[in-house]
Structures are given as structure tokens and as C-alpha cells.
């Protein structure tokens, strides 16, 4: 019994972690290329969630078909954010960039509040919605979460291969390592920065499109995911793409800590463990992990910039 509960928690954590690593991917790429922390990252995710929701509501199509739409909207949003906003912030001090993306966060959140209202909205129908599958004999997993995890891994792998194997991906890496040297190769820093924002924006809105299959959306949903993404990027190492993947899995498992706690209490039979309402502060463990990582290993598991 205890082992089944433990397995359930770990599988759920890994599946959620796969989606989380795509959430964090854009944050780490933007940081890697231009040393900017995008506080509005979670709001991009929120926009991806609304895109999935509205596209499926108005067209009647499955929410999964909204993913390409979410990718295009996210990429465009990233592109415009860079050219019309972030590029101008670069002329100012570091503080201007921090406060600038923070302002972008507030703006997008309140714009969503104005357009969509503050109530939770969720998807009611879809190929995957309401179904579940049994894996490893006894582990029940909702189809939405399994499907989201599989697609998330594909999206992550695709982005990783783009950065590692293509010429333009190498140019992106070169700009991340040394933008001055890259310019001497004829690589435009502005274009690479814009590309980072396009990938970052498209990646996180796709993650939103996946997430909305099993997670209700409201204008404030971004905050939680910004915090989770920050934890993942800090753990994996700022700017590290492989780091974001493995750290995503680890953070996914940490979010299932209440399940692991239950497994331990079943295994030991200690009564006091049942009485702790672990589920009501499940994210506390993630933030505690973030705090400890910054304290113990500020460079994360994979160091800064690969």
C-alpha cells in the first residue's frame, strides 16, 4: 500500500515536472542569451492557457489543436515584447530591466482581468479530458496529464535540438557566451535576442496550452508558475537548457511531497503524520528548496550558461 502511494506520487510528480520544464525553458533561454530575468514569464503562460481555453470554446475543437495557435501567439508576443519594449530597456541600467519586466507582468495580468474577469475557468471537454489510464500496474494517471507530459517532452526535445544542431541555434549560443565576439562573426545581437524571446514566448504559451487541459485558468495563475519556473531555473543553473529539464523533474516531484509524506506515514504507521495538513502547503516545499539552492549552490546543478 505504502509503495503504491509512493509510486503514484512520484509518477504524478514526474509527469507534472515534464510540463514544468517547458514552463521554465523560455525563462532560462532568455536569461542565458541576454542576462534578463523576465518577471512576466508566468503571464505569458496565462495567455497560453486562455488561448487554449478560448480557441477550444469558440471553435469546438479539441484543446490540443489550440497548441499551434498558442505557439504562434506566444512567439509573436515575445517578438513584439522584445522589439517594442525590452530592447529599449537595455539602454538603461540593470534595474530598469528588472522593473520593466515586472511592470509588463502587472500590465498583462490586469489586462487579462479586464478582458476575462477574475473567475476560474476550465476546459470541460476534449479527447483527453475526464479519462485516465493505468500504468505500472496500479498507478492511475489522468489522460490529460499523461498527454501533456508526452507533448511537453517532445516540445522540449525539439527546442533543445534546434539550439544544439542548427546553425542559427549555434549563433544563439554564441551570443549567449559572448555577444561582442558573436557580432564579429556577423551575428546580430538584436536578432538573437529577439529569437530568444520568440522561443521563450512560444515555449511557455505552449506549456500553458498543455496545462489548461487539467488546470483552471484565472488572471493570477501566472504567479505560481513564475515562482516554479524561477525555482527550476535556479536549480538547473541560469541559462542551462538541459538543467531546466532535470530540475523540472525534481521540482515536479517536490510538488508531490504531500503524497510522499502520506506514503511515509502509511509505511511507518505513525499517527501524528496523518494529522499534519501537508496538502495545504504543498508549494512551501518548492520555495524552501529554492531558498536552500540559492544558499548552498547558487550556480545550480548545471552551472551558469551550460
Amino acid at each position, binding site marked *: 500500500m505504502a509503495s503504491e502511494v509512493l509510486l503514484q506520487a512520484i509518477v504524478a510528480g514526474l509527469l507534472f515536472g515534464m510540463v514544468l520544464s517547458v514552463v521554465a525553458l523560455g525563462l532560462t533561454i532568455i536569461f542565458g542569451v541576454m542576462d534578463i530575468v523576465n518577471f512576466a514569464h508566468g503571464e505569458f503562460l496565462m495567455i497560453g492557457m486562455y488561448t487554449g481555453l478560448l480557441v477550444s470554446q469558440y471553435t469546438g475543437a479539441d484543446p490540443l489543436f489550440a497548441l499551434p495557435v498558442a505557439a504562434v501567439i506566444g512567439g509573436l508576443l515575445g517578438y513584439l515584447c522584445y522589439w517594442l519594449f525590452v530592447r529599449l530597456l537595455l539602454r538603461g541600467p540593470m534595474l530598469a530591466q528588472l522593473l520593466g519586466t515586472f511592470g509588463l507582468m502587472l500590465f498583462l495580468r490586469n489586462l487579462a482581468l479586464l478582458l476575462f474577469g477574475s473567475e476560474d475557468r476550465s476546459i470541460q471537454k476534449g479527447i483527453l479530458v475526464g479519462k485516465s489510464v493505468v500504468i505500472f500496474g496500479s498507478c492511475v494517471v489522468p489522460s490529460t496529464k499523461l498527454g501533456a507530459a508526452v507533448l511537453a517532452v517532445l516540445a522540449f526535445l525539439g527546442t533543445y535540438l534546434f539550439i544544439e544542431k542548427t546553425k542559427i541555434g549555434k549563433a544563439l549560443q*554564441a551570443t549567449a557566451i559572448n555577444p*561582442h565576439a*558573436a*557580432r564579429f562573426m556577423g*551575428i*546580430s545581437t538584436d536578432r538573437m535576442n529577439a529569437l530568444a524571446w520568440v522561443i521563450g514566448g512560444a515555449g511557455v504559451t505552449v506549456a500553458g496550452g498543455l496545462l489548461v487541459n487539467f488546470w483552471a485558468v484565472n488572471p493570477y495563475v501566472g504567479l505560481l508558475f513564475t515562482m516554479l519556473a524561477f525555482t527550476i531555473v535556479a536549480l538547473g543553473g541560469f541559462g542551462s537548457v538541459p538543467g531546466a529539464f532535470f530540475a523540472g523533474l525534481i521540482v515536479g516531484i517536490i510538488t508531490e511531497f504531500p503524497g510522499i509524506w502520506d506514503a511515509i506515514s502509511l509505511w511507518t504507521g505513525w499517527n501524528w503524520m496523518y494529522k499534519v495538513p501537508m496538502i495545504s502547503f504543498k508549494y512551501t516545499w518548492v520555495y524552501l528548496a529554492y531558498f536552500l539552492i540559492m544558499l548552498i549552490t547558487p550556480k545550480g546543478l548545471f552551472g551558469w550558461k551550460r
Partner: protein
Amino acid sequence: MEELLRTSEVEIRYGSLPVVQGVSIRVNSGQCVSVLGSNGSGKSSLLRGIMGAQRVSKGEIFWKKREIQGLRTEAIVKLGLVYVPEQKMLFGPLSVLENLMLGAYLIKDQELIRANLKHVFELFPRLEERIYQRASTLSGGEQQMLAIGRGLMSNPKLLMLDEPSLGLSPLLVKELLGTVARLKQEGIPILLVEQNVKEALHIADYGYVLQAGRLVLEGPSSELLASDLIRSAYLGL
């Protein structure tokens, strides 16, 4: 001879401090021109100014009689001016091959890229031996070879070398400057910035001498080698 690069009365300032004042130089096709001077004489600043990596406060810069001052660095690279920086500026975490391929970033023709790669490995066989090694793990001499090789990957119409011998042992300096001489024979126009005055002048056709940001002497290499200023100030004769 066709004029490639010309600067006219160029001035560069760091804040209010002028580091290059009224410098006019010229490189013709097929020529190797050397800019000489001690540390802090403004040689590197001049090159960075030409490349658009340093703001030029006064004067003009022409490439094939067209004004290029104010263009972005990427645009200047596209014209065929290739700069091999003093601090090498390699992409340390990337491999030797990846660094070289980035040098060919603007070239679309795969055949040409292969030919260039072959040429670079012919010049520097040690780079071929270390093809998959991270650039940051190379020795100082190998890093300089890689920096020059990376510059050659884009078929430069003018190769600007910023103190290629800096920090190398005398033997390596000889080897490297020998390669520069070979590139000159292959017909690649070169603008060579050096502190090793004697060696540089043996390679170059023409030389300019900078002192504290000002041009103090210029002339064909043979004349400069015989001049009193060079003999007393740089060669210690």
C-alpha cells in the same frame, strides 16, 4: 593599386580622454599594412573603431571609397572586414569545430565552407587534431591559431589581426607571424597591429607608428626599419 580601407582624421575618445587623435591610414588590395606602437598607443582602439565596436567621435572611415562609419559591426563584417580581436574572444564552451563554423556564419555555400575548413587545417594542423576539444581547454598558442582560423573561415576581404603574438613564447610568435606572412603571399590583404615592431615590419609592406594616439611616422617597411625613431625607440639600436 585599388584602395580598400581608408581612415581620415579619425578620433576616438574614452569619455573625455582621447585615445586616437587625427589618425589617417590606408590599406590597398594585396597589401599587408602594419600599425605599430607600444601598449596604450591606441592601435586596438583604432581597429575597434573601424569595426564599429567603438564609437568614433570625429573623422571618416571608408571601405572601397564608401563611407562605413556608423554601420553596425555585423554590417561591416558582411562587407568582408574581419577582425581577430586581441583577447581572442573565443566561444570557450564550444568545440574547435563549432568555433570555426561560427566564423563561417555569413557563408551559405557549403562547398566553400568545406574548402575554407581544409585551408585552416592546412595552416594549423594542430587545430585538426583538437577538432572536438572545447576552445577553453586549448593552450594560448592554439587559441590564437583558432582565433585566426575562425577569421579566415569567412573569406575575409581584409583580415585585421590585433596583436596576434600577444602573450606567446618567442618560438610561437615566430611560427604565427610566419603564418601571417604565408596568408599575405596567398593574396589576403592584412592589417596587422603589433608590438613586435621588427617582425611585423619584415612581413608588412607599409607601416604606421602610433604614439599616445597620434600618428608619428609612416612609410614603406624598409624605410621605417632604417629610420632613427624606430631604431632608437623600438629596436633599441
